[in-house]
């Protein structure tokens, strides 16, 4: 795909909380180029996660325009948003969000379920993806049978299985010790080197310094 992966122009997001407006984002403009490597930093409550959810199509802005893969999300139906999340974006969460009682292989294959891909092909592709993140030996394990680092790598494999152009990771190393965090980071960088745009949120200076660009947020604005 040519052109930037995501373009946000003066994007705002205001939450309504018991009738009170809580402005979490107050006009943010940001472009994620294809193949970009971007670190989002800032104090707690500055709106990093809110922005990530918008970039990932999990949420819609209350103001401004947001183009994901060239499409304005304001004009997309819930089904089209779902398709966008399925095909264009890979999302990695701080707390992994793997399905309990489900093996690593089936967790990784989950996005393919919503593409109507059959069980056999799903299993083949998720096995290959697990091998790429170095977890071929954990294929039949359930989340509670894996370490935190392994779980996060499963989550990354799941984010990658549909071949997205952007990988969004909200504090992917936040729940991991530094050595394990390094492993996960190295994996993300390898993927970035292969052309996937990576946006990650972190509180860790060292991690942020490894990115090509740093974006600092404060009180719902980019500074």
């Amino acid at each position, binding site marked *: 795909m040519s052109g930037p992966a995501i373009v946000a122009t003066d994007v705002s997001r205001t939450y309504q909380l018991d009738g009170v407006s809580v402005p979490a984002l107050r006009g943010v403009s940001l472009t994620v180029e294809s193949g970009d490597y971007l670190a989002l930093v800032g104090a707690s409550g500055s709106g990093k996660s809110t922005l990530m959810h918008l970039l990932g199509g*999990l*949420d819609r802005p209350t103001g401004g325009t947001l183009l994901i893969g060239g499409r304005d999300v304001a004009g997309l139906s*819930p089904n089209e948003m779902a398709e966008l999340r399925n095909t264009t974006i890979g999302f990695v969460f701080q707390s992994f969000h793997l399905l309990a009682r489900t093996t690593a292989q089936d967790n990784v294959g*989950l996005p393919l*379920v*919503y593409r*109507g891909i059959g069980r056999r092909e799903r299993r083949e592709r998720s096995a290959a993806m697990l091998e790429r993140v170095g977890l071929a030996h954990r294929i039949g394990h359930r989340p509670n049978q894996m370490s935190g680092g392994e779980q996060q790598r499963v989550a990354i494999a799941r984010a990658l299985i549909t071949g997205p152009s952007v990988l969004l990771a909200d504090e992917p190393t936040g729940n991991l010790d530094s050595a394990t965090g390094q492993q996960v980071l190295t994996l993300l960088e390898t993927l970035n080197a292969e052309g996937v745009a990576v946006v990650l949120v972190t509180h860790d200076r060292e991690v942020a310094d490894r990115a090509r660009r740093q974006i600092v947020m404060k009180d719902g604005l980019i500074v």
Partner: protein
Amino acid sequence: MRLAEAWRVALEALRANRLRSMLTMLGVIIGVAAVVALVAIGTGTKEQIERQVEGLGSNLLIVVPGRLEAGAAPTSSPLTLDDVEAVGRIVGDRSRVAVTVSSGETVRAGKRSGFASMQGVTESTPTVFVRRLDRGAYLTRTDVNTGRRVAVLGAGVARELFGERDPIGRQMTIGGVRFRVIGVFEALGQSLGVDRDGEVHVPVTAAQRLLGTERIDGLAIRAPDRERIDQLGADVVAALSERHPDTDFSAVTQEQILGVLGDILGVLTGVLAAIAGISLLVGGVGVSNIMLVSVRERTKEIGLRKAVGARPRDIGVQFLLEAVLLTTTGGVLGMLLGGSSALLVDRLSPVPAALTWWSMALAFGVSAAVGIVFGVVPAQRAGRLDPVVALRTE
């Protein structure tokens, strides 16, 4: 998402909460079982009564004073044996006309006594109705004409008064008057709610003398052929009305009795099924309730599925299938339970039961429908969940 996958997820979810799924199903199981069993009992009872009415003999025409309609007051009978002679002439054959004058009487033999339904009849009764003797002989024309005090006992009366002894030729009293036993009927059991084995047949003339009356209660005709049965009924009613201008008469055929009984029993079966249906409804509410709990418990899972590309419909279908799977499994188990209880009741109790395919199919269909109806709200709620909010819940 493919349907096969949705089924797999639904099944997995139910298996993960086995006990809860079972308990939820129980409501549906009981509801469906109740529908199937009660409809079976209703149907069985109806079939039994139809058999009994048909067992009275074919081409039967029953003539009674008064109008046969709901709410009509019972009419005291003006009929006498002279009327029977007249009817016999219309029918053309006296042996096709049976009469009764009946009364409940105390019967006694030696030290034993009991209560019996005394029926004053003519010798034609066994020809008009199907009635077989176990031993002895029935009343003869001479018995009727001379008012001889002889009696034919129902099996129950015979046992009550004589136990294992052979009653033939023995003396007994009916309402204090001495009679001699000449025959005993085969056991018949209950028929149309009446204990047929509690009857004692005596010549109508003897009964009238005992009761101090000339009346007879009604008469029955076995028509020579089916085609003329309605015409015959009209003729008889016309003749009787002419003889007794102040009284209405009615003639009913077996078909008419069957029709009326069938209607009543149909309504009864319907009411039973409706009551059972209510319990099925309650079961459905239970399913709805559990599905809402399930949606709440799995909010995070829903959020994650949406985050990786599930459409609202995918999530909705998944939960709807879960509800339908719950109720249809309950429906099948309920069918088995209801069917086997109906068979047990039929075998072990005097209540008849007949399983019908339509009631089973209906119960299954209804349970699936219950799943859809009561699953829709939770499924929609799940489908509409906002992914960010869903992922945030703990």
